[in-house]
């Protein structure tokens, strides 16, 4: 086959694969968007034709959701004088994920810097022990963590789900890999310039890691955003996060699909905005260290 033809064939194949992958990703999301604007009967019943375009039933579905779920957040509802409904869960999720991400970014980058740039006793065994905790499933940790938190008097507090994963092993691993790419001479020249070790870290090392930090922020934010089992166990109704609040819509007698669709649709919005905002850093951050610039 000629070179040009082969190239064309490759291109077609590449786009075909990408198209399939895109459809697989997009269709369920699109279906959520359509379903949240339709009455339940319109998308669950076999009596009607399947609908591919959004309808005008969003306000009713949203009102029903607000009526069924009621989550408080930091007493804001008392100040405002009305109940927040499902929006309280969104608020809780944003609050917890933001605090968690900030704290975890700080701890992970400090630990990553130490593992990448310092020599100390038992460095490798410590690092691999941290990595090994990645294989422990949350289901296994729920009971010990619950006992720990109750001893600490932290049940039904935000800290109960922020602290256990604050030093995130995946985050430490990622930051270590990226920090390794900082030339030693850069840190040494900062030392020669009179910087203390902490100044070397936050004045020189951290600013060169912007894209990695952005990428890690999204990963950590998403991780906390999606946590379900432990928040379900440790948080009371007044502090529910989005996944827990949604699970409340699945009752013993009836599953409120229309409301679940609205809740799921709304829960995408903050994450979507965060990704849009950090997108350009995200891609270069993931590639950092693997590609020589």
């Amino acid at each position, binding site marked *: 086959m000629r070179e040009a033809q082969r190239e064309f064939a490759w291109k077609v194949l590449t786009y075909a694969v990408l198209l399939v992958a895109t459809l697989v990703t997009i269709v369920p999301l699109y279906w959520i968007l359509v379903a949240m604007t339709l009455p339940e009967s319109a998308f669950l019943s076999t009596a009607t034709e399947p609908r591919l375009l959004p309808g005008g039933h969003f306000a009713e579905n949203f009102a029903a959701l607000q009526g069924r779920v009621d989550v408080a957040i930091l007493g804001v509802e008392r100040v405002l004088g009305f109940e927040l409904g499902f929006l309280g869960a969104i608020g809780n999720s944003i609050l917890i994920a933001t605090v968690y991400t900030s704290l975890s970014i700080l701890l992970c980058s400090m630990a990553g810097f130490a593992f990448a740039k310092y020599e100390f006793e038992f460095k490798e065994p410590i690092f691999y022990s941290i990595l090994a905790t990645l294989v422990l499933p949350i289901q296994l940790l729920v009971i010990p963590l619950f006992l720990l938190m109750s001893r600490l008097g932290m049940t039904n507090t935000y800290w109960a789900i922020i602290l256990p994963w604050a030093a995130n092993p995946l985050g430490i691993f990622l930051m270590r890999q990226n920090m390794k790419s900082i*030339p030693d001479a850069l840190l*040494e*020249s*900062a*030392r*020669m310039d*009179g910087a203390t070790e902490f100044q070397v870290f936050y004045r020189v090392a951290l600013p*060169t890691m912007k894209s990695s930090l952005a990428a890690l922020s999204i990963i950590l934010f998403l991780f906390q955003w999606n946590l379900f089992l432990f928040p379900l166990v440790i948080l009371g109704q007044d502090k529910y996060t989005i996944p827990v609040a949604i699970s409340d819509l699945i009752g013993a007698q009836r599953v409120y699909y229309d409301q679940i669709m609205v809740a799921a649709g709304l829960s995408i919005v903050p994450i979507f905005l965060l990704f849009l905002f950090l997108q350009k850093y995200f891609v270069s951050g993931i590639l950092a260290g693997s590609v020589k610039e």
Partner: protein
Amino acid sequence: MATIQIDSLRKEFENDEAGSIVAVEDVDLTVEDGEFLVLVGPSGCGKTTTLRCVAGLEDVTSGAIRFGDRDVTDLQAREREVAMVFQNYALYPHMNVRKNLGFGLKLSSGLSSAGIRERVDDVAEMLGIGDLLGKKPKELSGGQQQRVALGRAIIREPAVFLMDEPLSNLDAKLRAEMRTELQELQHELGVTTMYVTHDQTEAMAMGHRIAVMNDGTLQQVGTPEAVYRSPTNEFVANFIGSPSINLLTADVDGGTLTGPAGFEYALEDATPVAGHDRVRVGIRPEDIRPVNADGNEAEASVVEPMGNENFLYMGMGDLELTARIANDLRPAPGETVRFEVDEAALYLFDVATGEALKTMTDETDVAVGEYTTTGGE
């Protein structure tokens, strides 16, 4: 300003497989106040490690380092009042040139931001980078980055300058320009400077004195001329000089040296070889003098015209010889060349230890280790 005094410096690196590796062993060296000393040697000889020990970037295994009468051996880099220029410049990529220059002052000088601004402007003007202050390092050319790196060292008015191959990333023309500029700058500021390079030409051209290192030990310290003319051993003779000195092993029979492929040389003064059965003979390329009759015979292989002179490569059996000859002399490949060497220009070394038995003994008599501050300029 300060004298740098290094006493019995030893540096070992821990290594999992090989135990510990000795990078620097028993180095004693004094750099006079205001002097420009070049540390030169092949890669892995310990020169950079020595410099890093002086900088405070490596702990010493044993020995002491003093700046003037201040013992800095156990001080951290930031407490030593030293500035260092790195091979790859190590500019802070996220800061513009102004911030790069001012970073050290901001951290350690206690100057107001207006004071820092003024100093940055002064130094930038001095180095001709005043118009680059708003740019980021990646927007600069190699030469400009080099200047910023220099400026960052100068601005803090350190007691000691340390430079680790600062010119090696520049192209040849720029390197030659910066070489002169660096010397002028050092002369102007009068700051004691230690400069590391693997390039012996750079060492010869720049240093008041040069210190030659090999295998972690100091081989010789002296003015460029002293090191060139009176090397203490075969290694120094071989390392300094371009093209390199021609070396061969010869048998000693009274006052006659007999080498491979019929090489023969009759010494007038046989005292240096007394008691030796064999010696290593060294002949600088410029000391090979083509003659019409007598002398040794070699076969010309390649002539490299340099314009002002020619490099002639010749073979004597398996032995390769290099000669620097007049530019009008162009032997054809395969042609037989006869040459002589003045005894005054002959180098002789001990076969076993490499110690010099005889070095150049013509009219300019510079002894090993003799040092005058004007000697290298």
